[in-house]
């Protein structure tokens, strides 16, 4: 086997193992750490959800696929922890002016944080951000 072949094999193996050693994805190199961390903290069970309230007061949990074709669960969590939940709601509202089904106009968007004690699964839901939709009636004159 030539020296070039040996170098290529070594380099490939180093690159494949690099994300394993550094414990991070370095696209197009991947770390395979899914389901490796045992769930011991309540924070590991948390999920986020989007809710809309229409003009008649009806509340509806919005399915992630309705508003964002990517992985909304991660975006909601990341924006929440970066203190950008308001930005998230504003962007989602702009992307999705009329969520499906467009029945009654939406009055408010809410970001919900759902947590539960480990192994108890009695969820606790808190509204962590809300965005009132500006309409002609609610908008201030200078807007």
């Amino acid at each position, binding site marked *: *086997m030539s020296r070039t*072949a040996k170098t*290529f*094999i070594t380099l*490939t*193996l180093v690159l*494949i*193992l690099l994300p*394993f*050693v*550094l*414990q*991070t*994805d*370095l*696209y*197009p190199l*991947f*770390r*395979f*750490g*899914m*389901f*490796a*961390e*045992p*769930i011991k*903290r309540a*924070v590991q*069970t948390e999920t986020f959800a989007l809710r809309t309230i229409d003009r008649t007061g009806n509340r509806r949990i919005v399915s992630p696929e309705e508003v*964002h*074709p*990517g*992985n909304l669960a*991660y*975006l909601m*969590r*990341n924006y929440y*922890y*970066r203190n950008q939940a308001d930005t998230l709601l504003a*962007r989602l509202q*702009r*992307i999705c002016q009329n969520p499906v089904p467009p029945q009654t106009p939406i009055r408010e968007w809410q970001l919900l944080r759902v947590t539960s004690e*480990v*192994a108890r*699964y009695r969820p606790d839901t808190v509204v962590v951000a809300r965005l009132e939709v500006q309409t002609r009636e609610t908008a201030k004159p200078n807007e």
Partner: protein
Amino acid sequence: MNRKGYVFWLAGWLSATLLYVCWLRGLVPQVFHGNAPAWFTAIVNWTYPRFGVEKHRFELAFFVRHADQIVIRFGLVNAVALALVFSSNRYASVRHYWAGFWNLRISFARLHLYRIFFYTGILFFSGGWYLQLASLHRAGAFYKPVPLLRLLHLPFPPPWVSGILCAGLAASCLLAVWGFRQILFSIIVSIIVAVLFTLLQGWLFSFEKMDHAFAPITYALWLMPLVMRQYEKNEPLWALQLLRLVVGLVYLQAGLEKLLVGGWEWLSPDTFRNYLYLHPTALGSWVAAQNWLCVVLPLGALLFQLGFVSVVFVPRLRWVFLPAGVLFHAGTYALMHVGGYVNAWVWLYVFFI
């Protein structure tokens, strides 16, 4: 490698470990509290982009353990590499074994089966990408490119660009399936498939979530041009053997992650039960209520992931591990809706047949 080489290697390994223990480990609390030197913060942000979010979710001890893991894993990889190099240098039988291992030759029919099956899979798995990219375009405000795309200064593509690139990927896959015999053409087509697949997948992952569904296929894509070149030149197919080894190592890494991060606690029935509750399905809820299944299934999964790489060295074990792999991926989907019944990981098993 001579004695000097080993001394140099061991000294470098020891120095790096001491550097961490005596200095870098102390910087972890500083970066957690936001008062670390700028260069260290920059390194952490680059190598661990989730740190900005996770420092609000986990305590300091979690990140110190995370940093310790880097040194432990670096040591583990070094120890295995050193053992391999040392044994190859010292024992002729080991050298002979490795020479035979890399000197792989297979029939014309088998290689073409691999090529046709593999590139048909790429065509199939990337079939829906245009629609995904086109609909992601309206969510451009959330675009946060993966480092590779950031490095290339690539913005998110408008639908017409995605359309051209996806059409290019599909056409290249078809040409690769067709399989021209001209060396240059085959290699160029397979390189184009690898580049386009990596680029388009990178855009799909640029919304703060990396998916691993196509990870081993991505690795295989980058090795296939070399496999085809070697075959066309009638050389030993060490690149194909490397491809198999890489797939085996991917499973091994997934298994080692569980042992290194979770320890033996990972095998506790509660760990598996918690995963099932977090990814609820009807079957998963039933399994969660059966204590013995919550012991047997994760143990089986761990043994499968740690053992799969043995197929590369003892090919007859494929009749155990390949069916086990199909069951493993189908089971993960049935129990937690992770992955799918038609799985890109399983698609790669063709290279082991």
